[in-house]
């Protein structure tokens, strides 16, 4: 009989199968099989952490300083040397300066979308936004493409993210923690782990009751996709709810005090610690979203509040990943939606500036300890070839062994590449 197409262009019958590969529905056998397939493909990394600096962080005062530019451009802060010769960053980031061999700065990243929403979509999806199409965030692409353990969400957003699964469909959407963890405090996420004083025995008892109560459709269960789907999810939900591993992965309080304090007491730092734990447990993509970078006025006051947390948190993230042997298998990316005006405005701030921005990348597949690309002498635009957000997204996916030219189909059967317009950033990859 005729079947019809769903949002992601797959036929109804195929949907559950595809859903199963999305990670959330994967059996352990499948997982192992895919992990094996992954070995054959040899991706450099198997997980990613994306730190989003919402509002558009200034490039001029952080990772792309212009000490020789006129004062109204270079601003008040000074660069400092790092442990990599010739690579300088802002003096307010001493922790990062000590581990510069563990990351790479991209300068002269450039696009033309100066509105927050559009720039955000561009950088989170790798695709210049279209009005008629909602692109999936990179995390959704990764959850669709890479397998993950059955009791863990493949794509976690701390505390949430601006971009969902777009045309890929809800099942590839982020699992939002809805809150950021705090230093020294226990942390858990909605629905994961036993809630409200329930014990494993309580859960099993209820499951039995449910099986008994829910028998009406037994005769047609296997013929209905919806009913089959509900049954499948039912089993997986049980895995996740009762998994001690899943609950433990979210609970940063299980880290030693020494490790936890290394990340600082800020939101970014503790979120980064959670990201490490999740990646360690097998999540494929973790986003950390932090705001406050839209500094239209008094930028130096604002930077005093924001930079220390980023500096300490990001440095601790890289160090800890390395200590645990995860830096080689985790690709890390830091980005906002655009840079800020090279010239400081009358209110002592900087405004939106997509023509020149910075990004930071590290980890598996990345050649670290270098600067790729450049902006011109006043930080106004790229000097030489610009790096496009699509190029960076392509490179990130490449590190994860994902073919960024692969085509999906949208709801109207329109074929669309994962990254519509992207190429690998020259020199970035190891």
């Amino acid at each position, binding site marked *: *009989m*005729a*079947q*019809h197409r*769903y*949002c992601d262009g797959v036929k*109804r019958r195929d*949907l559950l199968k595809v*859903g199963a590969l999305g990670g*959330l*529905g994967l059996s352990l056998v499948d997982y192992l099989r895919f992990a094996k397939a992954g070995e054959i493909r040899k991706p450099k990394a198997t997980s990613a952490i994306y730190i989003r600096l919402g509002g558009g962080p200034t490039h001029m005062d952080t990772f792309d300083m212009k000490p020789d530019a006129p004062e109204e451009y270079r601003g008040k802060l000074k660069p400092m040397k790092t442990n990599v010769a010739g690579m300088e960053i802002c003096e307010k980031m001493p922790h990062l300066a000590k581990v510069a061999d563990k990351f790479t700065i991209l300068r002269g990243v450039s696009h033309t979308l100066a509105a927050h*929403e559009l720039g955000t979509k561009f950088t989170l999806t790798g695709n210049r936004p279209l*009005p*008629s*199409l*909602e692109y999936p965030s990179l995390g959704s692409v990764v959850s669709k493409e890479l397998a993950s353990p059955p009791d863990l969400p493949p794509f976690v957003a701390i505390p*949430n993210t*601006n971009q969902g699964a777009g045309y890929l*469909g*809800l*099942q590839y*959407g982020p*699992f939002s923690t809805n809150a950021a963890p705090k230093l020294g405090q226990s942390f858990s996420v*909605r*629905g*994961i782990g*036993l*809630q*409200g*004083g*329930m014990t494993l025995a*309580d859960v099993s*008892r*209820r499951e039995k*009751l*449910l099986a*008994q*109560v*829910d028998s*009406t*459709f037994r005769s*047609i269960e296997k*013929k*209905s996709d*919806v*009913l089959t*789907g*509900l*049954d499948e*999810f039912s089993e*997986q*939900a*049980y895995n*996740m*709810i009762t998994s001690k591993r899943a609950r433990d992965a979210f609970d940063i309080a299980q880290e030693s005090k020494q490790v936890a304090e290394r990340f600082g007491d800020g939101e970014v730092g503790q979120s980064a610690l959670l990201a490490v734990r999740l990646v360690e447990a097998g999540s494929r993509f973790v986003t950390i979203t932090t705001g406050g970078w839209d500094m*239209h006025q008094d930028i130096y006051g604002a930077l005093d509040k924001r930079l220390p947390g980023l500096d300490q948190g990001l440095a601790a993230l890289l160090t800890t990943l390395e200590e645990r042997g995860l830096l080689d298998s985790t690709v890390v990316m830091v980005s906002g939606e655009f840079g800020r005006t090279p010239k400081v405005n009358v209110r002592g701030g900087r405004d939106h500036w997509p023509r020149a921005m910075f990004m930071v990348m590290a980890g598996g597949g990345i050649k670290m300890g270098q600067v790729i690309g450049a902006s011109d002498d006043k930080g106004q635009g790229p000097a030489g070839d610009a790096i496009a957000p699509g190029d960076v997204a392509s490179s990130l996916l490449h590190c994860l062994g994902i073919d960024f030219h692969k085509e999906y189909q949208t*709801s*109207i059967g*329109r*074929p669309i590449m994962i990254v519509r317009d992207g190429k690998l950033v020259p020199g970035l990859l190891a």
Partner: protein
Amino acid sequence: MKHVSTIAVAVLLCWGGSSHAAELTPSKTPGLTGAPGVIKRADQRFANAATKEVPSFQRHVLPLMGRLGCNGRACHGSFQGQGGFRLSLFGYDFKMDYDALTKSEEPRVDLKKPRESLMLTKPTSNDDEHGGGKRMDVDSWQYRVLLRWVEAGAPPTKEGDAEFVRLEVSPLEVVFKKQGEKARLRVLSHWSDGSVEDVTPLCRFTTNDEAVAKVDLSGEITVVGTGDTHIVAFYDNGVVPVSALLPVTDKAGPKYPSTPTPTKVDELVVNKLRKLGVVPSETCTDHEFLRRASLDITGALPTATEVTSFLSDSSSDKRTRKIDELLNRPAYAAWWATKLSDILGNNEGKLRNQGGVGSQSEQWYQWTVRRIAENAHYDDLVAGIVLAKGRTSSDQSFEDYCRQTIAFGLGNEDVTERATMPHYWARQNMRTSNEKALSFSYAFLGVRLQCAECHKHPFDQWSQTDFQQFTAFFNRVTYGPTDRSQAEKMLAAAGIDKKLPNNERQKLLKKAIDAGKIVPQDEVYITASKSGARRGNDKGKNTGAGRVITPKVLGGDEVVDAQYDDPRQPLMDWLRQKDNPYFAKALVNRVWAHYFNVGIVEPADDMNLANAPSNKELLEWLASSFIEHDFDLKWLHRTIVGSRTYQLSWQTNSTNELDLRNFSHAVPRRMPAEVVYDAVVTATAGESELAKRADEPATVCAIGMSRGYTQRNNGNNYALTVFGKPKRETPCDCERSNEPSLLQTVYLRNDKEMFSFISRSNGWLQDALKRLPGSEGSAKADGGKENPKQGKKGAKSEPVVQATPADVIREAYLRTFSRFPTDQELANAEKYLVESSSPADGLNDLVWALLNSKEFLVNH
């Protein structure tokens, strides 16, 4: 050159609507191909090496290249081209393609040495010399078509050449008898000079379902499986679907059992089922009907009392009366206004902020709720949105407009009293004419024009020119400040510096409004017609050819822009025309899809020629009857829900168990996000809360939630997001997801919010426990920490009414499954309660299990 904007131009395409092309054609055309006057097939004419015929670029050369695959998306149809050669995608831009072949830096034709033309050498060479591989043989008929054209000097299409009129395909329906049977299609193209050519060897053919029928290049169909689908023929901008059907059982036709068809809908549905040999299921039970109709019409579960009284009613017309009763409930208006808001993109985060005057989204929603409750004619309701301007009367001054807008926002004036609702045109994602056209055709026509924005629509008749002409209706529709100087005066009078950053300005505006001042407001208005004079951006858009684009309705007439103060007027007039091919169909199809899980055209918002309806007669009857009933929405709902077809059981028989498109049984479907959320809240609510929810759904329930839509997310409701509430950001019905997902299951099983719904202090469970003798406290899983007093409170107060465990179990079933438990279920539950550590724990577990059951989550 004359500007056509002052001249009315008659119909360009004589074949208008979605399926009319096929209709105009007699379905029996024996002998037509052999008939005098029909030009023979190109493969026959060019089989002869001696032929002197010069083929036409438009009629032969380009279609052939399309068929060879040259202009496919992966080949030269790619926007970057391929190997330095680019053709228009799916080949409809004759000028561009002609230029690409003949005038580029590296022309594909060589007039001096025709056989060395790249367009001949490339497709006849192998992979290493041609990325696309070998497409044809040297000296084949295809080769000869291209060669003769080059030899003749590669003549272009000239002005005055005959234009393509329509495509005629025969047969239009093939009913097969057994697997493996074949049938051959014949395709004729009709041209404006009266000539007719057999273009079968120049067409593209596709199948809509390979599991039923396949089609090869020559137009030969092979049936491979039971069921029905369409084979589609493409040539020029003609697209014609052919129905192909292989009965599912031997009960087809005369052997079909006698089947009741009490309504016209049933008759039309069974007509199709008879061809397929599919027998519909029995009708559903009363409790299933009540639950299904309540969820579908009002987005709400029936209450326990309602179920009881409906089941005990023995009158024969109780279903009919129930339908009318449901249609008169506030929840019907709340729910269907939400459905309409989805389609129109009523999203708070996408509406442009008016200085501190409340929620435009809410205003728009309540305006719609009122009209649906009053059963406004659908065309009038749409006209109220399509023709809306900011000012409520033509002589309203700017200042009075601002005053009134503020009054609407503050609730001092009732915005639902407005005759029209302008906020649709204030959407941020509908600023450009292109965005307006895409949104409009999606919402009111069920047509997706996105493809034609950049190239010929691959599955429909629309070209880029059609798109641009349709877009021209919206060029003068504007939203923003009208009178800047007065606006500045008003700002100055309110003491607000217009140069302040937006967020600070908004704060001051709000303060000024609170202080009773009038601040300027943006408005929807129509700019003056340019009537030939052009200036700036997209107004009076000028094409490369120096033509001013004339507004033209899709597949219909051009319109004289300057004759109308408001170009939306002729557009609205067109929507209301009885012969409008889309307007009524789009609505009845969407409503049908709501009740049956799939549309007659599916996806319901993709009415293109290649996506043929599964039951054309049914769609046409519904649409024309809807128009005859003056677009009466309640008539439509009554007609659908009152049919036997809607009231069929989900239990299938051996003939219909695989049917998903022909409505032979009910399909279990997950409740929509808002409905499932409300169902959980209602099923667990105490009596007083139930009454409020029934009376004020548009303000209390999730089905009446309009404000929640923000730019970032689906609002702040986690559960609604997880259950797939649409974001209302892109024009696609698929934004709403009714698919199950893991997160949904995790939420229902294990979320604290779920636990607290079940055990809330004013909820049903606590009430039931009070009535149960021997109950000592609230259940464990409500997260005892949050409400430590609940249990004690329950134990302390005196039992109100004594109830037995069986009474309480029955109530729980009625509230969730909308039926009484069977004896076995009752016994099982009683046993479970007895064995539980406390009645509270036992009952809590039971409610939890009922809410997590498929029988609860699925509308069946």
